């Protein structure tokens, strides 16, 4: 079995799967249960001066019959006394010494207040501190959370204060609600951050009740924008994790957060540079038990591919994340339809005809043979047909080799390299009845 042991900025855990700071990490009982279930670490629900929450805190987006493909919340940080939280963190650490326990902190932007909370936290024996500079709702109105994380100078300043007294690793959790997250990441590193974690939730309104016109989650008919998360945000998180992990000025470990629900998601985050993985929404949906398949699936995949440790996988996809101008213009591909697998739904035709390049021809249904075929001279290899096809392996994209060397836009625009010939029909769709 693959070795999943993790050392993230000096914080050790038996596997890379940590519970992200949130409702599942609110109490000793939950975190202990999670560790018993197999979680490698937990970032405690953010501690600060206890707040008062509203009733009705979560909203979600369903996709068809699939529940909660997107999720948001307007819950604030912990509403429990700081002392209670710290006492339970100490208890967890005492009873689960090999697991990673990290305290998430958010207090007023005052040096002495930060010094005090960091010192008290370290007394618990916690393995690390995560600074919540990302929470986008409620706390940001009070000058905390993303109000800090959206301003590089504030971010740097508070990290510096924390590092003045910190004796354990400090992770800075970043908000995606900025134009370029790398600026904030660099500021955190400049302030002395030992690691970064991202993404926190995204500003959102998940829905509006069409009977009452109340946005969700409705608090007596009103709502406020909340933090969006869940499977829907994974692509955004993957991009931002890769952007930070690739940035030559960052160079600190990155903990990946955002829509991780399966071992595949986890492996993708690791391949884009994540050193540990934080999960919240999937646990809120299905419970702590999901960690079993996260571990099992990741291990099986690593074993099958011959990856012994996470270090073998980490960042492996980063080199392949390029600028558009670095992509090869002479890589040509075409869609191929396996007619034996085709079930004749014609979704590919509809999508290509209306939404892409009119490169699929319809054939009469009553002939008993194929009903769709690729018009190769019109196919730009865009992938859309393969994406909409409901049969696995029926439409594949195949490279069409040519004798031309690779040429990127950067090179071509500079007058270097030669473009392989392209079909005239790319720009001249001919409309006929056969379509």
């Amino acid at each position: 079995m693959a070795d999943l042991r993790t050392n993230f900025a000096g914080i050790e855990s038996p596997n890379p799967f940590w519970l992200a700071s949130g409702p599942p990490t609110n109490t000793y009982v939950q975190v202990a249960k999670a560790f018993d279930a197999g979680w490698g670490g937990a970032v405690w629900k953010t501690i600060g001066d206890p707040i008062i929450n509203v009733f009705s805190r979560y909203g979600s987006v369903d996709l068809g019959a699939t529940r909660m493909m997107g999720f948001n919340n307007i819950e604030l940080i912990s509403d429990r006394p700081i002392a209670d939280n710290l006492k339970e963190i100490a208890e967890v650490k005492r009873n689960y010494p090999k697991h990673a326990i990290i305290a998430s902190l958010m207090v007023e932007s005052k040096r002495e207040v930060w010094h005090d909370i960091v010192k008290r936290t370290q007394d618990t024996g916690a393995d690390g501190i995560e600074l919540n500079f990302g929470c986008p709702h409620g706390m940001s109105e009070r000058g905390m959370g993303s109000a800090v994380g959206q301003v590089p100078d504030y971010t740097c300043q508070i990290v510096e204060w924390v590092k003045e007294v910190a004796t354990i690793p400090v992770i800075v959790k970043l908000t995606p609600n900025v134009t370029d997250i790398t600026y904030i990441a660099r500021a955190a590193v400049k302030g002395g951050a030992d690691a970064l974690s991202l993404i926190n939730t995204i500003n959102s309104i998940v829905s509006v009740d069409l009977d009452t016109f109340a946005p969700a989650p409705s608090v007596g008919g009103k709502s406020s924008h909340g933090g969006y998360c869940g499977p829907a945000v994974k692509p955004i998180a993957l991009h931002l994790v890769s952007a930070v992990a690739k940035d030559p000025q960052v160079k600190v470990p990155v903990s990946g957060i955002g829509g991780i629900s399966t071992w595949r998601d986890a492996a993708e985050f690791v391949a884009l540079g994540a050193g540990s993985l934080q999960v919240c929404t999937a646990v809120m949906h299905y419970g702590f038990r999901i960690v079993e398949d996260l571990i099992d699936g990741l291990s099986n995949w690593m074993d099958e591919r011959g990856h012994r440790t996470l270090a073998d996988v980490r960042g492996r996809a980063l080199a392949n994340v390029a600028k558009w101008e670095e992509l090869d213009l002479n890589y040509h591909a075409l869609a191929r339809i396996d007619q034996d697998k085709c079930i004749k739904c014609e979704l590919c035709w509809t999508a290509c005809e209306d939404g892409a390049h009119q490169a699929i021809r319809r054939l009469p249904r009553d002939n008993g043979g194929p009903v769709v075929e690729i018009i190769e001279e019109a196919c730009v290899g865009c992938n859309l047909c393969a994406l909409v096809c409901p049969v696995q392996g029926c439409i594949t994209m195949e490279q069409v080799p040519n004798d031309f060397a690779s040429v990127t836009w950067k090179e071509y625009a500079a007058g270097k390299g030669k473009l392989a010939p392209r079909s005239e029909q790319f720009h001249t769709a001919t409309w006929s009845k056969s379509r």
Partner: protein
Amino acid sequence: MPEPSDAQLAENFADIAPALTPDFALLEANTCLFCHDAPCTIACPTHIDVPAFIKKIATGNLRGSARVILEANPFGHSCARACPVEVLCEGACVLNDRDEQPIKIALLQRHATDHVLARKLQLFEAGKPTGKKVAIVGAGPAGLSCARDLRRSGHAVTVFEAKPQPGGLNTYGIAEYKLKADVALAEVQDILDLGVELKLGVTVESLEPLLDEYDAVFVGVGLGKTKGLGIPGEDLEGVVDALTFIEHLKTHPYRQTRVGKRVVVIGAGNTAIDAVTQAKRLGAEQSTIVYRRGEDDMPCYDYEYELAKRDGCSFRFHASPKRIVGNGRVEGLEVERPDKSRETIPCDMVIVAIGQGARTDLAVPSGNPKLFVGGDCANGGAEIVNAAAEGVAAARKIHELLGGNRR
């Protein structure tokens, strides 16, 4: 075996395919691929735009979904319950080719139409009066489909029906566990509410006066009586034709329909299955199909055969009825085997289900441009959906005849 209790009878005749829950409907609707040029739509005689109505279920637009269904097929609700979808839309579903179950189109169709029936939502309105009037003979699915679209075009419509209730076989002849009379009548009422004049208990004996008085006449009178066996003993007490048996069952409290302890049904079509299963469900100890040919020759649909087997009915193949024996009452059915040997199957009730003949009591002259026919009397006996398709098509032709533009 004791007689079934009222509760047992109610269970025996409950909907064979219960309505989908909203959650299941949403799941199923979202499983539909939304095919282009969809084979399900092509397979439906009324060409309901199946992907369109299913997509509307997925978006929560049930009223719009029902409208798509009923626009194409005024009897979309009863078809959802009684159509042989296995050989029509669901049989054509592309998911069959992915080694999967097809989309439950019939149940989704019922889900959408239940929504409007339960709320008595009228989705259509009568057209501006044209001053033209059309007579329709027969208030079955063909006649009333024709009536609905004529009313939408603004023509005055009078429907003549010999029976005391409208709906034709929907009201009187569909197996009780598929479609109950009150449901059939509720569906009919939506059509009548468009302003159709309905004359019940009126037997039209000649079309000539109607052709003189009306601008057009549509005939949808269905088939004639069940064919006779032409064997001795047919007049014994305890011999009944399938349609009479089923009609009695559907128009009376269950207990009032007499059923034997040992019932023999002669014939192996879909009506024979309806008879043999309902006799069993009424409490017959044995309910047996007797058929002169073999299992593979049975004209009923495969799924109907499966249903009868599940119901515990028996089958006697290669048994050709020769004589019904009994002293005043049925005591047995004498059959001949292929080797010419004979055997008497003991029974106390014989249900004859060997098909209906054509109507002989109403002369339908050919060549009159004002006269249109549709439904079972034109197609020789088919499904509700065929009758609806033919009624709708006739309405379109009549509308054109009366100078209207195509809608």
